[in-house]
């Protein structure tokens, strides 16, 4: 059999359009999953046992069952609650729920890696919970969490292909439709693979950039902070400016 990539060229616009849907699905569900995961991670580290248990149960349930099952379940179970969901909203809900479970665990590990003594030091100067989270815990947790968070983001992006099973016309389903009508599976799948690689490479790049940006000891004080805290009298600031 000879390969013929001209077919892939013809269908590239269709596939790129599907890629936009893949990107949208990945970004939206990752964002929702991260937001819920952040609140849940705080709950998971709370001093209230009931809250800790509730969040733990959520993670246990959604991390312990396949995303594929969540997709089917949300899609087919919605009518029981008197609503019919289109494929895309169902996929967004299902993938956000599962993303939330993973992100809860990832963010919790970051929060718990911040030494208790630092939180006590913040309490001792009179800082309140919200400020401590924002100024002391989050900046450090973010840095610790970047590698596992981005790894998960990458898997999550690839997992959007599962939404094809409930007929969301994202990249995977679109590829399947194209090759089943053109019989050029190898070519079309190669192109789809390349597109996924480009997407995940962007995320890898983002990870590197974030890691560099948050390595505070290596970078020292930013120029803006120098100016704010050390004042204009500082010679090094004047030279930089």
């Amino acid at each position, binding site marked *: 059999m000879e390969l013929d990539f001209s077919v892939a060229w013809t269908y590239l616009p269709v596939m790129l359009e599907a890629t936009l849907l893949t990107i949208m699905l990945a970004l939206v569900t990752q964002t929702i999953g991260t937001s819920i995961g952040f609140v849940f991670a705080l709950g998971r580290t709370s001093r209230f046992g009931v809250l800790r248990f509730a969040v733990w149960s959520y993670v246990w349930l959604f991390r312990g069952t396949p995303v594929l099952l969540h997709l089917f379940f949300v899609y087919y179970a919605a009518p029981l609650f008197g609503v019919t969901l289109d494929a895309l909203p169902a996929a967004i809900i299902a993938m956000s729920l599962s993303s939330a479970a993973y992100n809860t665990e990832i963010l919790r590990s970051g929060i718990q890696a911040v030494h208790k003594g630092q939180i006590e*030091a913040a*309490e001792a*100067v009179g800082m309140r919970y919200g*400020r401590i989270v924002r100024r002391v815990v989050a900046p450090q947790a973010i840095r610790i969490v970047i590698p596992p968070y981005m790894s998960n983001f990458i898997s999550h992006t690839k997992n959007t292909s599962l939404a094809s099973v409930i007929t969301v016309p994202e990249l995977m389903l679109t590829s399947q439709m194209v090759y089943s009508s053109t019989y050029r599976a190898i070519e079309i799948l190669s192109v789809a693979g390349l597109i996924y690689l480009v997407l995940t490479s962007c995320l890898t790049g983002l990870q590197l950039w974030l890691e560099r940006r948050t390595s505070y000891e290596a970078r*020292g*004080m930013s120029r803006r902070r120098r100016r704010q805290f050390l004042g204009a009298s500082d010679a090094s600031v004047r030279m930089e400016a």
Partner: protein
Amino acid sequence: MTQAESPMIEARDIRKTFGTFQALKGVSLTVGRGEVVCLIGPSGSGKSTLLRCINHLETPDSGVVRVDGQPVGSVENNGRTTRMSARQVAQMRSQIGMVFQMFNLWPHISAIENVALGLTEVKGMSVPQAAKIAREQMERVGLAAKCDAFPEHLSGGQRQRVAIARALAMEPKVMLFDEPTSALDPELVGEVLQVMESVAADGMTMIVATHEMGFARKVADKVVFMDDGNDVEAGAPDQIFDNPKSDRLQRFLNKVLA
């Protein structure tokens, strides 16, 4: 009793249990304005727990803490005790400086930002205002040249001096030191004790849990010996070190001064 006459710190009959272990068995302590009290005693005797009850990092099971006449943690009203809101506790803590054995600096910001954070976050100061005070405090602890250094790049002694500057910047009414030199290499102990001595000389009311008997003898107005969750003996340094009354204190001194 007016505020001016009341002692600066008053802890009465503080009890604290961890699980089934009684860490404090009814400890009382009074510190006058501008006084320096040193807490000495063997490891596990409850020194840290007492300090942490005073600024309410630990909630005592019972007992009353007052700083400058104001209750910390819980308020008594007609015999009923009600707990203070988180906001009130935070407000009281901002007036109580604390220095920890392990420094507990925030590693993600520079030294001067460590000193300034409480001012912007708790006192609501603008960054320029906070930075000005933070610079002054860094100078006070002899670290004006290290303002932009991150904690990781400072020696233990320098870190502890930043931690002291951080506490002083809040203009607290009292300062609590929990074994501030125990984690330091011997050659770095002196610089920290020197700063503490100058803070004491400026009239700060201080409680210092310490194993530095030389410092206690020199700087303390009163030394309190704790053992097994009790305040066993208290008195002027001369009395405690040269004329210990209880067996337990004699045994402790024999061990540490040997």
